[in-house]
């Protein structure tokens, strides 16, 4: 147990909306250990961001959170006051969001913003803060770092701003980094550079990382563990290689068949598809919420209970189909 940094069990989020009660996160659980990367993946709207905001205590004011367990570094964080949560955030738990422009303050210099996080969390001198800022800017690949301290966010490119965000997230030596679509707005070469950098830093500092993305290519390349989310629930989870080699849930399988892969999918060949859209999560929900998009759905799916089928080594999926019905199937089945 000593390596576990974060443990979450049965986390739910409810948000009252005009049409009734929205249930965007419905009983999610996961854990992250030192040096480990957990990827949470799924289409947009499946509840990934709200899951991470719930962990960080940053949910919208109207949202209600409940969990059987939320332990960070052995401490129950469910009942922490906002001031105590704020001490954790940016300190031992830090985050990186998709759009660095919204998290960097346009009217302060890079140097001031980096130092501020440090001085707020670590009681140290300004000189120490400045040294650490320069050290980390260099680490994240920003050239002539010392002279950049006086620059403002708008003077940097998108990729450089994301590097600054990463440096800021590292200022206080966090144990856990939560990165929500950190490269989604960036060009592919810069995306690869940033992900490469994150993986290196994580290894070097032995941090735990939760990386949230809709991109299965990213997941395959960076995850140790994968959690596939659909309609606020985990539909499949397991070690990265296992999930990609032998995906069991029809949703995971379907998403994988949609991706064009140079060298594997032929030009002009039809790609697989997952027809339909994520269902509305307002009101009473029951059964498998994927059933209206699933090729294998039967009447029984409407009454399915959340009882994951466990395959060993942590691989589990929640679907009524038995493993022997699934595993014999060709991976790239033709869609009709």
């Amino acid at each position, binding site marked *: 147990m000593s390596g576990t940094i974060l443990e979450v069990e049965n986390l739910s989020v409810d948000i009252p909306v005009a049409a009734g009660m929205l249930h965007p996160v419905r009983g999610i659980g996961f854990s992250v250990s030192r040096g480990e990367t957990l990827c949470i993946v799924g289409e947009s709207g499946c509840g990934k961001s709200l899951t991470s905001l719930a962990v960080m205590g940053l949910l919208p004011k109207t949202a209600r959170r409940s969990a059987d367990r939320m332990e960070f570094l052995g401490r129950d964080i469910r009942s922490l006051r906002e001031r105590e949560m704020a001490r954790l955030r940016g300190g031992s738990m830090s985050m990186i969001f998709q759009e660095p422009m919204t998290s960097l303050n346009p009217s302060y210099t890079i140097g001031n913003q980096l130092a501020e996080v440090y001085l707020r969390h670590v009681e140290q001198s300004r000189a120490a803060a400045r040294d650490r800022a320069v050290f980390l800017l260099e680490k994240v690949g920003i*050239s002539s770092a010392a002279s950049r301290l006086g620059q403002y966010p708008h003077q940097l490119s998108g990729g450089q701003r994301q590097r600054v965000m990463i440096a800021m997230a590292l200022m206080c030596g966090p144990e856990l980094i939560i990165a929500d679509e950190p490269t989604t707005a960036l060009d592919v*070469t810069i995306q*690869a*550079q940033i992900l490469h950098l994150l993986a290196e830093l994580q290894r070097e500092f032995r941090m735990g990382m939760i990386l949230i993305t*809709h991109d299965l290519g990213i997941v395959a*390349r*960076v995850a140790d563990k994968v959690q596939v989310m659909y309609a606020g629930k985990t539909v499949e989870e397991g070690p990265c290689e296992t999930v*990609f080699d032998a995906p069991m849930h029809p949703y995971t399988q379907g998403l994988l068949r949609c991706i064009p892969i140079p060298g594997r999918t032929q030009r002009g060949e039809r790609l697989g598809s997952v027809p339909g*859209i994520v269902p509305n999560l307002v009101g009473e929900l029951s059964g498998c919420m994927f059933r209206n998009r699933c090729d294998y759905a039967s009447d029984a799916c409407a009454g399915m209970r959340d009882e994951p089928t466990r395959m060993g080594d942590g691989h589990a999926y929640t679907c009524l189909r038995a493993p022997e019905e699934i595993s014999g199937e060709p991976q790239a089945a033709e869609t009709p």
Partner: protein
Amino acid sequence: MTEAPAAALETVDVTCVFQVSQGLLRGSKPLRAVNGVSLKIPRGQVVGLVGESGCGKSTMANILLGLQRPSSGDVLYAGNSAAGFSRREIARRIQPIFQDPYSSLNPTKTIESIVSQPLRIHSVGAPSEWSARVGEMLDVVGLPRRVASSYPSQLSGGQRQRVAIARALIMRPEVVICDEPTSALDVSVQSQILNLLQDLKEEFGLTYLLISHNLAVVQHMADRVAVMYLGRIVEEADSDTLFNDPRHPYTRALLGSVLTPDPRLGVPDTHLGAVFPNPIDPPPGCTFHPRCPDCMAICRSEPPRPASDGGHNTECHLYGGAP
């Protein structure tokens, strides 16, 4: 050998310069968004145009659509100079599909009104037929006819992109310019739109320019690929050639950055520098040199000249050789 037929669409040494304000009292400076580009789009083919944001792809699209006048150079429609065509004639031949179906569809108009818009603007056919034509187009793009009376906000992202495709095709164009048609969509929706674009190409004999920053998408769709960097096409070849034998260091970095869902591979090191060029004040020599892992002394001072090797064009000193 018979002479090759004229391309459906072609640019000849097209340049597009924008004057960019430098702030109060500091005047403006020229920005060469497109800098001497010659590109052929043969009839019935899919040409892919890839490159990072800001390299000039959308400016190229706008020039081809007749929405942006080039500063110099010419656009040829089936071999004839754009100068001889009216806006309406261009619109009949070439229609766009843009990235974000949210912002490119007017939220206050019904789907019927949006899809029939090109017919109204260019007064094509009798107004009494428009509604029927909209219905047919909705069938073609796989939308139920009842969405005709809906508004964009009532549709999903994928449905909105189908509306944009219906609007483009209602003019029965020869060429469709797809500017990042799936970049804002989830993969599950992207695959449906790509399949639809393939089907429509067969059904209507369309020609596509497919602009994308996603090389996997381009490889899946395109017969020929052009790679753009800071307003220039730095490499161009048949799709298979480009993917099997990428030459320009930028093309190689782009290919290396495609993260296929392979759990046994990590994130590759692109070996690219992190320095970003300012398009208003581009680096001397090869504009890619500050990021290039193969940069040589000559690259810092001399711009490379295009070199062609059996239809595989590369603009890089590594392949310049002797003239």
